[in-house]
């Protein structure tokens, strides 16, 4: 079966040919495009390490078939910083010790970016914890993660206000 999928990955249009319809979006990113920042944890949608943003929404890339996402626009951890300037969510994870071993961190950061874009959590730590519950952290850095998300959200809100003004 010869399959070809066209995706925009981190702003670049890519046409990827493959012969096995079982290829997940996660395996396409890691094995075919060598974008290994997106992690494979459970590979069953339980841990969130594979979280990427597809057409503006955070999803588990391990439970998405590449062949079904023809035409999709994908953002991965590799493209959230601008050159040497980290994304405000990355900065906040460093400032608040939102990680220990770092394996879940790309998924946490992509999930946090998605959460902030969704605009449902506001400055309520309970809503942040609830909104981040699809990302497990075996090191237990949850306290720092919650603080980082709240901090990044306030930084991004202030930046948005400046843009509007």
């Amino acid at each position: 079966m010869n399959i070809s999928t066209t995706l925009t990955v981190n702003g670049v249009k890519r046409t990827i040919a493959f012969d096995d319809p079982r290829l997940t979006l996660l395996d396409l990113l890691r094995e075919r495009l060598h974008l290994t920042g997106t992690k494979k944890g459970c590979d069953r949608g339980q841990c969130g390490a594979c979280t990427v943003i597809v057409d503006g929404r955070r999803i588990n890339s391990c439970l998405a078939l590449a062949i079904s996402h023809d035409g999709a626009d994908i953002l991965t951890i590799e493209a959230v910083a601008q050159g040497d300037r980290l994304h405000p969510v990355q900065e906040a994870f460093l400032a608040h010790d939102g990680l220990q071993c770092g394996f879940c961190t790309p998924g946490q950061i992509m999930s946090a970016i998605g959460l902030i874009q969704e605009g449902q959590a506001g400055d309520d730590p309970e809503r942040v914890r609830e909104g981040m519950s699809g990302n497990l952290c075996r090191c237990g850095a949850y306290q720092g993660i919650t603080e980082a998300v709240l901090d990044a959200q306030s930084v991004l809100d202030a930046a948005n206000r400046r843009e509007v003004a």
Partner: protein
Amino acid sequence: MKTFDYVRPATVREAVAAASESGAAYLAAGTNLLDLMKGGIIGPSRLVDISHLPGLDRIEDLADGGVRIGALVRNADLAHDQTFARRFPAVAEALLSGASAQLRNAATVGGNLLQRTRCAYFYDVASACNKRDPGAGCDARGGENRLHAVLGWSESCIATNPSDFCVPLVALDAVVEVEGRAGRREIPLEMFHRLPGDAPERETVLEPGEMIVAVRLPAEAARFAAHARYLKVRERTSYAFAVVSAAAALRIEGDTIAQARLALGGVATKPWRAREAERMLAGARVDGSLFRRAAEAALADAKPSGDNGFKIELARRIVVRALALATAGTPERVPALPASPFASVAGDVIHA
């Protein structure tokens, strides 16, 4: 994972034709399907990808006051649609209490109705399971079964349906629109899922190839908006399936319940409508023992299927709590911890 042919139809008619062949399965987001395929629990020979079909991702207000939700509407989009959430708050709360944000962003309305049980013996291909392998037996019967069914179960299967979304939907008389080779038909959601009997592998009344195209709620369902809640006991606060859950929707006039709707989740292979309890509540004045009596009526036929007798009393108590919270009134906004019972009647979170 077993390999498969991939088909992407352009119309519902083409999809139905492609899915009518033996071994075919519909693919929408795939959040449940791919998990089952990766585990070797199912192995469809053909996937019919309906995720690109046009026109199935709309939430339409109908002329008669009802709402029609396309089968491909994502769970998160439905829950965050302000008009929908205001009219059907218990449905929004149920959706937001299910899965994780990532899964809700992908998972569809039709897929939610067709999700498979989370029974560990169904998932473990080394175990006997009549649902996965008809006639093989049921290892859940003598196994780890504290979370299994207490209503409507049979000797051949004690699994539960894991959907949160379906619980308020069944309470509010939702109707499922399906299309098949013989055309379009409508099925009340209450009739959509089957009890296991001696054929637990048949989980719904869908015929081969039939596809869900929409779910409808009638105008009357919005009349409960001021007093509607979904409550769900889980083994952890978030991102967990229900041990038991309840949707309660009331129409209150003065100090009297004019009309009541009640359904339970996590107790059977289908969302469980508690009609006897509804009759008891209708026309009654709220007093100290009313909700308890309704809860006892709702669970009157319950019996343990294993080490799960506790679920019967837990279900009674969650019914009482759901009715009390519904009486107190629908919150302005879905609570920070949707459907969590760990909040006081006034709505204050009581655990930090």
